[in-house]
Protein backbone atom coordinates (compact mmCIF):
# COMPACT_ATOMS: atom_id res chain seq x y z
CA UNK A 1 0.00 0.00 0.00
CA UNK A 2 2.89 2.29 0.87
CA UNK A 3 4.60 1.84 -2.49
CA UNK A 4 1.35 2.17 -4.45
CA UNK A 5 0.27 5.29 -2.57
CA UNK A 6 3.65 6.95 -2.98
CA UNK A 7 3.88 5.94 -6.65
CA UNK A 8 0.46 7.19 -7.73
CA UNK A 9 0.71 10.29 -5.55
CA UNK A 10 4.12 11.30 -6.90
CA UNK A 11 3.24 10.59 -10.53
CA UNK A 12 0.02 12.62 -10.23
CA UNK A 13 1.89 15.34 -8.40
CA UNK A 14 4.43 15.70 -11.20
CA UNK A 15 1.72 15.74 -13.86
CA UNK A 16 -0.34 18.33 -11.97
CA UNK A 17 2.73 20.53 -11.44
CA UNK A 18 3.20 20.62 -15.22
CA UNK A 19 -0.41 20.79 -16.43
CA UNK A 20 -2.31 22.80 -13.83
CA UNK A 21 -0.35 23.77 -10.71
CA UNK A 22 -3.29 25.88 -9.54
CA UNK A 23 -5.47 22.76 -9.39
CA UNK A 24 -3.15 21.01 -6.95
CA UNK A 25 -4.30 22.34 -3.60
CA UNK A 26 -8.05 22.34 -4.41
CA UNK A 27 -7.73 18.65 -5.37
CA UNK A 28 -6.19 17.72 -2.03
CA UNK A 29 -8.61 19.86 -0.05
CA UNK A 30 -11.54 18.44 -1.99
CA UNK A 31 -10.33 14.89 -1.40
CA UNK A 32 -10.05 15.44 2.34
CA UNK A 33 -13.49 17.01 2.40
CA UNK A 34 -15.05 14.11 0.47
CA UNK A 35 -13.47 11.64 2.87
CA UNK A 36 -15.49 13.11 5.74
CA UNK A 37 -18.70 12.94 3.72
CA UNK A 38 -17.85 9.30 3.05
CA UNK A 39 -17.18 8.76 6.77
CA UNK A 40 -20.64 10.13 7.57
CA UNK A 41 -22.21 7.62 5.14
CA UNK A 42 -20.13 4.82 6.59
CA UNK A 43 -21.03 5.81 10.15
CA UNK A 44 -24.70 5.39 9.23
CA UNK A 45 -24.09 1.85 8.01
CA UNK A 46 -21.83 0.89 10.91
CA UNK A 47 -24.09 2.45 13.57
CA UNK A 48 -27.06 0.37 12.41
CA UNK A 49 -25.21 -2.92 12.06
CA UNK A 50 -22.86 -2.64 15.01
CA UNK A 51 -25.79 -1.69 17.23
CA UNK A 52 -27.63 -4.78 16.05
CA UNK A 53 -24.57 -7.00 16.31
CA UNK A 54 -23.98 -5.85 19.90
CA UNK A 55 -27.47 -7.17 20.70
CA UNK A 56 -26.71 -10.44 18.90
CA UNK A 57 -23.48 -10.69 20.87
CA UNK A 58 -24.97 -9.92 24.31
CA UNK A 59 -27.87 -12.32 23.82
CA UNK A 60 -25.46 -15.11 22.93
CA UNK A 61 -26.76 -15.39 19.38
CA UNK A 62 -23.53 -14.71 17.51
CA UNK A 63 -21.60 -16.88 19.97
CA UNK A 64 -23.88 -19.79 19.12
CA UNK A 65 -23.46 -19.13 15.39
CA UNK A 66 -19.69 -19.01 15.80
CA UNK A 67 -19.71 -22.28 17.72
CA UNK A 68 -21.71 -23.96 14.97
CA UNK A 69 -19.35 -22.67 12.28
CA UNK A 70 -16.16 -23.24 14.25
CA UNK A 71 -15.20 -26.64 12.77
CA UNK A 72 -15.51 -25.28 9.24
CA UNK A 73 -13.74 -22.08 10.20
CA UNK A 74 -10.93 -24.09 11.78
CA UNK A 75 -10.49 -26.18 8.67
CA UNK A 76 -10.51 -23.35 6.13
CA UNK A 77 -8.79 -20.62 8.14
CA UNK A 78 -6.64 -22.92 10.28
CA UNK A 79 -7.55 -21.24 13.55
CA UNK A 80 -9.20 -22.30 16.82
CA UNK A 81 -9.73 -18.73 18.05
CA UNK A 82 -13.48 -18.48 18.81
CA UNK A 83 -13.60 -14.67 18.70
CA UNK A 84 -11.87 -14.69 15.30
CA UNK A 85 -14.32 -17.31 13.99
CA UNK A 86 -17.22 -15.17 15.21
CA UNK A 87 -15.87 -12.19 13.27
CA UNK A 88 -15.26 -14.28 10.16
CA UNK A 89 -18.75 -15.83 10.31
CA UNK A 90 -20.47 -12.45 10.68
CA UNK A 91 -18.26 -10.93 7.96
CA UNK A 92 -19.20 -13.66 5.47
CA UNK A 93 -22.88 -13.48 6.43
CA UNK A 94 -22.99 -9.71 5.78
CA UNK A 95 -21.16 -10.13 2.48
CA UNK A 96 -23.52 -12.84 1.29
CA UNK A 97 -26.56 -10.70 2.14
CA UNK A 98 -25.12 -7.87 0.05
CA UNK A 99 -24.57 -5.50 2.99
CA UNK A 100 -20.86 -5.21 2.28
CA UNK A 101 -20.41 -2.05 4.36
CA UNK A 102 -21.55 -3.87 7.47
CA UNK A 103 -19.02 -6.63 6.82
CA UNK A 104 -15.96 -4.42 7.31
CA UNK A 105 -16.01 -4.00 11.13
CA UNK A 106 -16.28 -7.78 11.57
CA UNK A 107 -13.30 -8.41 9.30
CA UNK A 108 -11.26 -5.82 11.18
CA UNK A 109 -12.21 -7.47 14.48
CA UNK A 110 -11.32 -10.95 13.18
CA UNK A 111 -7.99 -9.73 11.79
CA UNK A 112 -7.18 -8.11 15.13
CA UNK A 113 -7.94 -11.42 16.91
CA UNK A 114 -5.83 -13.38 14.42
CA UNK A 115 -2.97 -10.96 15.03
CA UNK A 116 -2.79 -12.26 18.62
CA UNK A 117 -2.16 -15.78 17.27
CA UNK A 118 0.23 -14.46 14.62
CA UNK A 119 -1.95 -16.23 12.03
CA UNK A 120 -0.96 -14.43 8.81
CA UNK A 121 -2.47 -17.18 6.68
CA UNK A 122 -6.00 -16.63 8.00
CA UNK A 123 -5.63 -12.84 7.89
CA UNK A 124 -4.57 -12.86 4.26
CA UNK A 125 -7.17 -15.45 3.24
CA UNK A 126 -9.92 -13.38 4.84
CA UNK A 127 -8.60 -10.32 3.00
CA UNK A 128 -8.58 -12.20 -0.32
CA UNK A 129 -12.11 -13.51 0.16
CA UNK A 130 -13.33 -9.98 0.85
CA UNK A 131 -11.22 -8.34 -1.86
CA UNK A 132 -12.66 -10.64 -4.53
CA UNK A 133 -16.25 -10.04 -3.41
CA UNK A 134 -18.56 -12.74 -2.08
CA UNK A 135 -22.18 -11.90 -2.66
CA UNK A 136 -25.45 -13.72 -3.23
CA UNK A 137 -27.55 -10.68 -4.05
CA UNK A 138 -25.96 -7.52 -5.49
CA UNK A 139 -28.40 -5.28 -3.61
CA UNK A 140 -26.91 -1.91 -4.59
CA UNK A 141 -26.73 -2.71 -8.30
CA UNK A 142 -30.31 -4.03 -8.43
CA UNK A 143 -31.58 -0.90 -6.67
CA UNK A 144 -29.64 1.27 -9.10
CA UNK A 145 -31.00 -0.57 -12.14
CA UNK A 146 -34.57 -0.36 -10.86
CA UNK A 147 -34.31 3.39 -10.36
CA UNK A 148 -32.83 3.73 -13.87
CA UNK A 149 -35.99 2.14 -15.27
CA UNK A 150 -34.58 -1.27 -16.14
CA UNK A 151 -37.10 -3.72 -17.57
CA UNK A 152 -35.32 -6.63 -15.86
CA UNK A 153 -33.37 -5.24 -12.92
CA UNK A 154 -32.56 -8.69 -11.49
CA UNK A 155 -31.30 -9.86 -14.89
CA UNK A 156 -27.71 -9.54 -13.72
CA UNK A 157 -28.05 -11.72 -10.61
CA UNK A 158 -27.00 -15.00 -12.23
CA UNK A 159 -23.96 -13.70 -14.17
CA UNK A 160 -22.89 -11.77 -11.04
CA UNK A 161 -23.18 -14.90 -8.93
CA UNK A 162 -21.07 -16.91 -11.39
CA UNK A 163 -18.50 -14.10 -11.50
CA UNK A 164 -18.14 -13.60 -7.74
CA UNK A 165 -17.89 -17.35 -7.20
CA UNK A 166 -15.22 -17.62 -9.87
CA UNK A 167 -13.17 -14.68 -8.60
CA UNK A 168 -13.15 -15.81 -4.97
CA UNK A 169 -12.45 -19.48 -5.77
CA UNK A 170 -9.72 -18.60 -8.26
CA UNK A 171 -7.95 -16.23 -5.86
CA UNK A 172 -8.28 -18.56 -2.86
CA UNK A 173 -6.92 -21.54 -4.83
CA UNK A 174 -3.97 -19.55 -6.20
CA UNK A 175 -3.23 -18.26 -2.69
CA UNK A 176 -3.49 -21.64 -0.96
CA UNK A 177 -1.57 -23.64 -3.57
CA UNK A 178 0.90 -20.92 -4.58
CA UNK A 179 4.45 -20.53 -3.25
CA UNK A 180 4.69 -20.78 0.53
CA UNK A 181 6.15 -17.30 1.02
CA UNK A 182 2.86 -15.76 -0.20
CA UNK A 183 1.12 -17.08 2.91
CA UNK A 184 3.43 -15.92 5.68
Amino acid at each position, binding site marked *: *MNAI*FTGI*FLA*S*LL*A*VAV*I*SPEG*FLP*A*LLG*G*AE*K*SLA*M*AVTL*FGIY*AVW*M*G*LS*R*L*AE*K*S*GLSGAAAKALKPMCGKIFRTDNTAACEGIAMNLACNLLGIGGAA*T*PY*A*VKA*IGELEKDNN*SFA*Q*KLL*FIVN*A*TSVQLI*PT*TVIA*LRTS*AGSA*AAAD*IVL*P*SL*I*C*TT*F*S*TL*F*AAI*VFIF*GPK*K*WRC
Partner: protein
Amino acid sequence: MAMLIPLIFIAVFAFAAVKKVKIYEEFSAGVGEALKFTLSLIPCLAAIFMMCELFEVSTLSDKLTKLLSPVFSFLGIPAELTKLVLIKPFSGSGSLAYLNEIIAEYGADSYTGRCACVCYGSSETIFYISAVYFAGLKQKKLAAPIAISLVSTFLTTILACLLCRIM
Protein backbone atom coordinates in the same frame (compact mmCIF):
# COMPACT_ATOMS: atom_id res chain seq x y z
CA MET B 1 -36.25 -10.03 -0.58
CA ALA B 2 -36.81 -6.59 0.94
CA MET B 3 -38.42 -8.39 3.90
CA LEU B 4 -35.20 -10.14 4.82
CA ILE B 5 -33.44 -7.29 6.61
CA PRO B 6 -36.43 -6.20 8.77
CA LEU B 7 -36.92 -9.88 9.64
CA ILE B 8 -33.31 -10.17 10.82
CA PHE B 9 -33.85 -7.11 13.05
CA ILE B 10 -37.09 -8.50 14.47
CA ALA B 11 -35.47 -11.85 15.22
CA VAL B 12 -32.42 -10.35 16.95
CA PHE B 13 -34.46 -7.82 18.98
CA ALA B 14 -36.95 -10.48 20.06
CA PHE B 15 -34.21 -12.93 21.01
CA ALA B 16 -32.35 -10.24 22.96
CA ALA B 17 -35.57 -9.30 24.80
CA VAL B 18 -36.17 -12.94 25.75
CA LYS B 19 -32.59 -13.19 27.03
CA LYS B 20 -33.24 -10.02 29.12
CA VAL B 21 -30.53 -7.99 27.42
CA LYS B 22 -30.76 -4.24 28.19
CA ILE B 23 -31.61 -3.44 24.60
CA TYR B 24 -31.36 0.36 24.65
CA GLU B 25 -28.05 0.43 26.55
CA GLU B 26 -26.43 -2.27 24.46
CA PHE B 27 -27.67 -0.93 21.13
CA SER B 28 -26.26 2.51 22.00
CA ALA B 29 -23.00 0.91 23.11
CA GLY B 30 -22.80 -0.77 19.69
CA VAL B 31 -23.33 2.60 18.01
CA GLY B 32 -20.54 3.95 20.22
CA GLU B 33 -18.23 1.25 18.86
CA ALA B 34 -19.31 2.23 15.34
CA LEU B 35 -18.38 5.85 16.04
CA LYS B 36 -14.93 4.87 17.32
CA PHE B 37 -14.44 2.59 14.33
CA THR B 38 -15.50 5.25 11.81
CA LEU B 39 -13.15 7.79 13.42
CA SER B 40 -10.28 5.32 13.20
CA LEU B 41 -10.92 5.00 9.43
CA ILE B 42 -10.81 8.72 8.63
CA PRO B 43 -7.01 9.10 8.28
CA CYS B 44 -6.92 6.23 5.74
CA LEU B 45 -9.99 7.52 3.93
CA ALA B 46 -8.63 11.05 3.70
CA ALA B 47 -5.27 9.93 2.32
CA ILE B 48 -6.83 7.66 -0.31
CA PHE B 49 -9.41 10.27 -1.36
CA MET B 50 -6.71 12.90 -1.73
CA MET B 51 -4.71 10.51 -3.91
CA CYS B 52 -7.76 9.73 -6.08
CA GLU B 53 -8.62 13.41 -6.55
CA LEU B 54 -5.05 14.23 -7.47
CA PHE B 55 -4.95 11.31 -9.91
CA GLU B 56 -8.13 12.60 -11.54
CA VAL B 57 -7.00 16.25 -11.75
CA SER B 58 -3.59 15.25 -13.13
CA THR B 59 -5.43 13.79 -16.20
CA LEU B 60 -3.28 10.68 -15.70
CA SER B 61 -6.46 8.66 -15.24
CA ASP B 62 -7.76 9.88 -18.63
CA LYS B 63 -4.44 9.10 -20.30
CA LEU B 64 -4.32 5.64 -18.75
CA THR B 65 -7.91 5.04 -19.83
CA LYS B 66 -7.07 5.98 -23.42
CA LEU B 67 -3.95 3.85 -23.36
CA LEU B 68 -5.71 0.76 -22.02
CA SER B 69 -9.01 0.96 -23.92
CA PRO B 70 -7.68 -0.89 -27.02
CA VAL B 71 -6.25 -3.65 -24.81
CA PHE B 72 -9.56 -3.98 -23.00
CA SER B 73 -11.51 -4.06 -26.26
CA PHE B 74 -9.24 -6.81 -27.52
CA LEU B 75 -10.13 -8.87 -24.43
CA GLY B 76 -13.83 -8.33 -25.02
CA ILE B 77 -14.32 -5.60 -22.42
CA PRO B 78 -16.26 -2.63 -23.85
CA ALA B 79 -13.97 0.44 -23.97
CA GLU B 80 -16.61 2.45 -22.06
CA LEU B 81 -15.90 0.27 -19.01
CA THR B 82 -12.18 1.02 -18.84
CA LYS B 83 -12.46 3.79 -16.28
CA LEU B 84 -14.88 1.85 -14.09
CA VAL B 85 -12.54 -1.16 -14.07
CA LEU B 86 -9.51 1.04 -13.27
CA ILE B 87 -11.14 3.01 -10.46
CA LYS B 88 -12.99 0.19 -8.70
CA PRO B 89 -9.99 -1.21 -6.75
CA PHE B 90 -9.43 2.23 -5.20
CA SER B 91 -12.79 3.79 -4.60
CA GLY B 92 -16.28 2.40 -4.15
CA SER B 93 -18.00 5.77 -4.37
CA GLY B 94 -15.89 6.85 -7.35
CA SER B 95 -16.70 3.71 -9.33
CA LEU B 96 -20.35 3.94 -8.34
CA ALA B 97 -20.41 7.39 -9.93
CA TYR B 98 -19.04 5.92 -13.18
CA LEU B 99 -21.55 3.05 -13.05
CA ASN B 100 -24.32 5.65 -12.75
CA GLU B 101 -22.91 7.54 -15.72
CA ILE B 102 -22.72 4.42 -17.87
CA ILE B 103 -26.27 3.40 -17.00
CA ALA B 104 -27.55 6.92 -17.70
CA GLU B 105 -25.77 7.07 -21.05
CA TYR B 106 -26.29 3.57 -22.45
CA GLY B 107 -29.34 2.37 -20.48
CA ALA B 108 -29.54 -0.30 -17.79
CA ASP B 109 -30.56 -3.06 -20.21
CA SER B 110 -27.96 -2.38 -22.90
CA TYR B 111 -25.01 -4.72 -23.27
CA THR B 112 -22.60 -2.08 -21.97
CA GLY B 113 -24.90 -1.26 -19.05
CA ARG B 114 -25.32 -4.90 -18.03
CA CYS B 115 -21.57 -5.54 -18.33
CA ALA B 116 -20.89 -2.54 -16.11
CA CYS B 117 -23.41 -3.78 -13.52
CA VAL B 118 -21.95 -7.30 -13.36
CA CYS B 119 -18.36 -5.98 -13.23
CA TYR B 120 -19.25 -3.55 -10.46
CA GLY B 121 -21.21 -6.15 -8.48
CA SER B 122 -18.55 -8.84 -8.68
CA SER B 123 -15.52 -6.75 -7.74
CA GLU B 124 -14.35 -5.01 -4.60
CA THR B 125 -12.33 -1.98 -3.53
CA ILE B 126 -9.12 -4.00 -3.11
CA PHE B 127 -6.70 -1.22 -2.10
CA TYR B 128 -9.20 0.41 0.18
CA ILE B 129 -9.92 -2.90 1.94
CA SER B 130 -6.22 -3.67 2.34
CA ALA B 131 -5.64 -0.25 3.92
CA VAL B 132 -8.57 -0.55 6.33
CA TYR B 133 -8.15 -4.20 7.34
CA PHE B 134 -4.49 -3.97 8.20
CA ALA B 135 -4.40 -0.42 9.58
CA GLY B 136 -2.55 -0.26 12.88
CA LEU B 137 -1.01 -3.74 12.62
CA LYS B 138 2.66 -4.38 12.21
CA GLN B 139 3.95 -4.31 8.64
CA LYS B 140 2.52 -7.18 6.54
CA LYS B 141 3.73 -8.53 3.25
CA LEU B 142 0.55 -7.85 1.32
CA ALA B 143 1.95 -7.62 -2.20
CA ALA B 144 1.04 -11.23 -3.10
CA PRO B 145 -2.54 -11.19 -1.73
CA ILE B 146 -3.19 -7.81 -3.41
CA ALA B 147 -1.73 -8.99 -6.73
CA ILE B 148 -3.75 -12.23 -6.63
CA SER B 149 -6.95 -10.29 -5.93
CA LEU B 150 -6.26 -7.83 -8.77
CA VAL B 151 -5.52 -10.56 -11.32
CA SER B 152 -8.57 -12.52 -10.23
CA THR B 153 -10.76 -9.41 -10.49
CA PHE B 154 -9.44 -8.68 -13.97
CA LEU B 155 -10.09 -12.25 -15.18
CA THR B 156 -13.57 -11.97 -13.68
CA THR B 157 -14.15 -8.77 -15.66
CA ILE B 158 -13.36 -10.63 -18.88
CA LEU B 159 -15.66 -13.48 -17.80
CA ALA B 160 -18.43 -11.01 -16.91
CA CYS B 161 -18.37 -9.41 -20.36
CA LEU B 162 -18.43 -12.84 -21.96
CA LEU B 163 -21.37 -13.99 -19.81
CA CYS B 164 -23.35 -10.83 -20.58
CA ARG B 165 -23.00 -11.62 -24.27
CA ILE B 166 -24.54 -15.09 -23.95
CA MET B 167 -26.94 -14.73 -20.99
